[in-house]
């Protein structure tokens, strides 16, 4: 028997994340430029009838660039901008999601059906980029 099974796991998640959700990192392999402006470095397809909360992100950029996370919340497009004035890495996580109050969700016929993390500027040839999104999903 796992120790975890002796615990009240949903209650523990409620206390840790504020809702009964299992967090997971959405990642993909590093991207090497060149790529065009508004290139999606990582993203997640959304299913109807769920709210998705963004508990964190990681970005590695081998050159200055601007990044944005884009999602749809109740039909409105939302953005979170992250500026990299130089190359570097940022990992941000918190127990309050960056979209607390504006969860990502999708309706049938929505034009945007993903949470995506994009590079606003074009990626230079041979320059490495990496990105991830820490997502929790709950029933609507």
């Amino acid at each position, binding site marked *: 028997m796992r120790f975890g099974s002796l615990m009240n796991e949903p*209650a523990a998640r*409620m*206390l840790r*994340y*504020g*809702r*009964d959700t299992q967090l997971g990192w959405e990642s993909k392999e590093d991207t090497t430029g060149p790529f065009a402006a508004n290139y999606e470095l990582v993203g997640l397809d959304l299913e109807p009838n769920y709210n998705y909360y963004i508990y964190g992100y990681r970005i590695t950029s081998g050159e200055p660039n*601007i990044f*944005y996370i884009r999602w749809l919340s109740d039909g409105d497009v*939302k*953005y*979170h*901008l*992250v*500026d*990299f*004035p130089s190359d570097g890495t*940022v990992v*941000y996580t*918190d*127990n*309050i*999601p*960056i*979209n*607390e*109050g*504006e969860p990502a969700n999708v309706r049938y016929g929505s034009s945007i059906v993903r949470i995506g993390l994009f590079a606003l500027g074009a990626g230079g040839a041979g320059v490495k980029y990496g990105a991830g999104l820490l997502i929790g999903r709950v029933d609507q």
Partner: protein
Amino acid sequence: MKISEISSRKQFLMENFGEEIDYIEWYVTPPLLGPYPHPYYIFEVHPVYEDLECFIYGYFITSTEENEYLLYWYSNGEPYMIYITPGSEGTILQTTNVAINKSAPLYYGDNAYIVALNPIGDSQLYQVGLLVGTYKIVK
């Protein structure tokens, strides 16, 4: 949300933020593209009902140029402010589990602002926000 989840959510907020807040939310502007004059009131948030008081638990500033900011709010009509000087362009995402305005919450009629103190340049991108916890006053 089930009753047990509402109770757990309340406990989560209490354990993380110490005040008996009922609700917390990031209030964030859309991306803003300069130019704008200065001082520019980028952002405003306030309690929307008489029986609410608001606590500020974090701020978010992205700008593609260097600037200085004032987080400026009123509590019972009295002004309070803190300067935020990032020192360079970039992103600041700062949260705390003790409210920045713990001793001076916003009441109905009070506002909080983020003000850019220097001009916002042509084609410069900005986005700002505040993490606000709201407490429903029990009379």
